[in-house]
């Protein structure tokens, strides 16, 4: 497959190295061209200016005799190949820590950008750029390096570095670019760039194959053929989206633009993962960030978490794993860990977000995940249909896992809670035409509008037909091509679960079609994503899930 680096970077699973094409499509004044980038979140800017972000870290220009050369490029998950009239440059990833570059007939100029407190120096190891608490080390294996960077006394910063790579007498240069730190624990290098490219390609293909296998086996059909190329990009975005994060492997929102790890997104990221064991690991890793009381933070980052609740979407992911038989393959030990983790986090809702009655509510608007959705007609706190649906699924999942673990008493108890929550949804919140939200403090009710009111479709046949029909009718009014991908995905999956396959297929086509053209951002079609940040792992995972089902 070919990558459009204007929309998605060349990178690899667990690697922070990236290469993308800056188009300055937001008019911020970037010089256009290919850039080296590093998915790092700044690492603690405190006083002075901001740290350099992933974007625009170093502009890459092939040169000859010091003059810049026009170039074209081709990119794949294996490599990025630049061609000029005078020669070529190839970039590959060697594992997750090293970006390798080799040139023939040309040199390279890297116009770097430093954040406050960062420096670039040249040492016996090569050019070392300090950033984000680490060191970006550019070492020459063939050819030579020169650095132009000096201290500006009055500006209290180093000038932006210009790194020049000159080929050796045979016209060749080769670089190893390490994502390291002051410990300089540099990994051994592969024999050749071709070996690196092959390894990357093999890893990606193995990952991609597992998706095709699942859809073939599950639906008997390949992924929507009209969108084959787009689904390749989604698979790539998911494969490349994972990062090492505090000893775990999770997917930040977007390696190019937002390195926070959103807990709700992890639940969606796990949806299409064919390996149930891995999917459970993603959920367990996510829930491990719960507060001592059991709240799963909205996001976590290297420095700080956003300690605000978000809906337990993971309940749906687990339900799918149970329904699909995925949990059968998971060890009892891991299943037990999942039970304990969910027990704690689901109980948080049952104790911290209920009053005298078992009405589970959102205390704050942001807790619904999309605070601008029209789900708070009765103000806050709000007993809302989407949350009630998640609670039905969560309690039911806990009941079934408890049963698998031989905890019969707990299974019965969670089963009772699930039924109770279902009754609240279908009795207290349903008014015959649609769902209401309910303010448990005032008793006020108001029609729950917007996409979140359709989330109960995830309960599928647990809902009466009349309710399903009414919700499906409402869903028909959604402008899928503009809808936020994650809730849209959940609703479409709900339509499928509710037997509304044709409606689901039409909605999925509209949703997927819009994303194929404009990326997976929630403002697609209105505001373009920043260069290189068009496709994010969680929405891509959602779309892949739809592709697999329809």
């Amino acid at each position, binding site marked *: 497959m070919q990558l459009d680096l204007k929309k998605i970077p060349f990178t690899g699973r667990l690697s922070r190295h990236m290469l993308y094409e800056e188009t300055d499509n937001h008019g911020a004044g970037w010089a256009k061209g290919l850039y080296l980038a590093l998915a790092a979140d700044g*690492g603690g800017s*405190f006083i002075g200016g901001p740290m350099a972000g992933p974007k625009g870290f170093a502009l890459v220009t092939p040169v000859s005799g010091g003059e810049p050369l026009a170039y074209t490029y081709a990119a794949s998950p294996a490599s990025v190949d630049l061609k000029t009239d005078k020669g070529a440059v190839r970039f590959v990833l060697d594992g997750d820590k090293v970006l390798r570059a080799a040139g023939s007939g040309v040199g390279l100029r890297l116009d770097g950008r430093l954040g406050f*407190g960062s420096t670039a*120096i040249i040492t016996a190891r090569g050019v070392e750029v300090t950033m*984000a608490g680490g060191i970006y080390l550019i070492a020459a294996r063939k050819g030579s390096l020169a650095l132009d960077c000096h201290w500006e006394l009055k500006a209290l910063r180093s000038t932006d570095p210009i790194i020049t790579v000159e080929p050796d007498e045979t016209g060749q240069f080769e670089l190893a670019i390490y994502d390291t730190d002051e410990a300089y624990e540099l990994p051994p290098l592969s024999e050749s760039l071709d070996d690196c490219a092959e390894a990357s390609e093999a890893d990606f293909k193995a990952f991609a194959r597992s998706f095709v296998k699942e859809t073939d086996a599950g639906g008997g059909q390949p992924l929507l053929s009209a969108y084959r190329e787009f689904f390749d990009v989604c698979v790539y975005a998911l494969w490349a989206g994972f990062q090492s994060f505090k000893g775990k492997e999770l997917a930040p929102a977007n390696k190019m633009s937002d390195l926070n790890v959103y807990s709700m997104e992890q639940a969606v990221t796990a949806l299409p993962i064919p390996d149930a064991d891995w999917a459970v690991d993603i959920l367990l890793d996510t829930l491990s960030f719960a*507060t001592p009381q059991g709240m799963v933070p909205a996001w976590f980052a290297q420095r700080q978490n*956003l300690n605000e609740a978000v809906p337990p979407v993971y309940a749906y992911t687990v339900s799918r794993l149970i329904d699909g038989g995925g949990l059968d393959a998971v060890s009892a030990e891991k299943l037990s860990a999942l039970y304990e983790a969910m027990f704690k986090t689901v109980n948080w809702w049952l104790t911290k977000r209920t009053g005298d009655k078992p009405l589970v509510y959102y205390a*704050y*608007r*942001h807790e619904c995940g999309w605070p601008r959705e029209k789900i708070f007609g009765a103000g806050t706190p709000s007993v809302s249909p989407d949350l009630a649906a998640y609670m039905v699924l969560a309690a039911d999942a806990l009941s079934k896992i408890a049963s698998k673990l031989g905890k019969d008493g707990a299974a019965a108890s969670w089963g009772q809670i699930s039924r109770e929550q279902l009754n609240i949804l279908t009795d207290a919140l349903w008014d015959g035409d649609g769902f209401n939200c309910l303010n448990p403090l005032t008793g006020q009710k108001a029609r729950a509008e917007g996409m979140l009111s359709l989330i109960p479709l995830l309960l599928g046949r647990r809902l009466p037909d009349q309710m399903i029909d009414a919700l499906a009718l409402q869903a028909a009014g959604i402008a899928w091509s503009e809808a936020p991908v994650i809730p849209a995905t959940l609703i479409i999956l709900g339509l499928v679960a509710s037997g509304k396959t044709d409606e689901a297929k039409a909605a999925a086509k509209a949703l997927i079609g819009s994303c194929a053209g404009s990326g997976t951002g929630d403002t697609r079609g209105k505001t373009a994503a920043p260069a290189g940040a068009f496709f994010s792992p969680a929405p891509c995972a959602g779309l892949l899930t739809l592709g697999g089902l329809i």
Partner: protein
Amino acid sequence: MFGTCEKFNLQRATFARSACAFYIFEDYYDHLLRLSNYKPSAMVMSSPFLFRLKLLSEGVEVPYTYFSDAGSLKMTSDKGFAQFALSDQDQMRIRGKGVTLRIELCPAIPEMGASACHGVRPLKNGAWEAVFGTYGKFLFKPLKGAVSADCPWDEDKGGYARVVFDLITDDSGEFETAVHDNMVEFDVDGAVYPPFDALVKASLDSYEAFKKNYAAPAKGYEELFDYAVYQVWSHRAKADGGYKEPGILFQCSIAGVFSWQQSYHGMTMLGNPREGWRQICTLFLYQDERTGRLPSFISYVGGANPGIQPPFQGFALDALLRLKGDDFLTPEECARMYPKFVKWAEYWLTRRSAGREDPDNPGHFDDVTAINNPNDSGWDDATNFKDGFPAQNPDIMAFMVILMETIARLARGCGRTDEADSWKARADKLLRTVVTEFWDGEKFVTKVNGKPVDSMSVICYQPILLGDRLPKHIVDKVAETLTKEGHFLTEIGLATESLRSPLCDYSANTFIAGRVVAPPHMCLTTGLYFAGKKKEAAKIARRWCDNVKEKGVILGFAPYDHYKLTGEKANITHGPVASDGWSWSSWAAACTLMMITVIIPGAEQV
């Protein structure tokens, strides 16, 4: 101590308390008091997490004056008062009479509106919880009277139009409210609410007890001593969040426990050298086990922090030992800290090695260091870095000499005699190198690419901190230079760049390019003191201390409103600026305490 009608107000200082993250200061522009909390480490000048404090009578805002000391802050109006007390239990208490206290979210930049607030909700018993995203959470719990919230949601903006809390009196005309803060989740079921006056007393007692960490001040500086100790005490964070042990913040508005500042504090604690030693050791709790690096700062929110600060720990320990003896340095302590100090020294000697071959040990580097970023020296805009990097600066090498010497002391203290001898030999050798290669007859010189940097920075004299290790002719020359009027010495202390230098710059947003700044005074006067130049040290110290006695415990001052060399007017901003010259600073307080408890009294004993 601070107030509308006092010598000092809260425009530059803060009402704060040891082990409490709430703080209150006066807005420079509208003169209303503002409330914030340092846990999210937001900077005051750009923070959306600031609250304006108003007094209301019958719904109408009334003017007030205020007064604060270590125990409480009281806002007083014709109609009544509101009074604040802080506790070490993540709690602030407010009581009032005759008026309503309004606490209104009001960001530093008006365009931010109420964006910091993500949610407000009523709880049982009339309490309100407000959540502010990454800025944390407040819980207003009424103990007497009521709390009301006016926080309308703006559908168009997708956020709150305003966020206002009123603390309202009951029928008796009084109110009392506890405000809890938390960065994660509240669990206040077991919270206790001692009487207001008990909190005030506890704060005053805590402050008085903290004073005992210091030696008595020189005559005439008793009031300055109280203010300086208050500044340190009020900025002492407890072990919580990212802090593994108590540490002292730079400022509430730059709420980091900075690496080398902890040692500045440690060496001043002559009333309690054990606490001083603990303070010096603080950053070793966060040492990178692979490299030996100590992070440049620690904040409440935690996380890995880039950069380093100078290896000041040896100098601080040496000062404690010289001034208070070594009772606190038990064999167990030596054994505990020896390997950590060694790792820290090795970090510098390998990762900041100048790469010079050691003639006595061919194939190996000597112990001369070089830095690639002025932040490593602590002196961000000093002119000895004008020729760039890597810079071999003797100010750092002087720290290294004493660090290695104290490592030898620690080794000896735990029975590692051979290692002690080895480290002492290395310290002596580096000292010889500093003296023979980096002293040019007039000053110590920084070298870049082997060439001396032509600088008139006061940092060129910082190796005087080696004290009596230096030859007499150097000590004499440094003492003579630093006490010469109109060169570095001004009426308010030492300029950080010679007044004769064309590069002297004390305009807004400069640090060490000319301003009279506290920390170099600590290094230089302590060095002169240990070198036997006690009168000279005291002369300089008095200049600094007499100024801060009148102007406040601030990090730096422009010595004049014009430049002596050219007569040109200096660009000095008098309002709040991002430079270190604005707020009271606990770093400056530590330096001041050293001068008024050691340096100045020391001269009187001569």
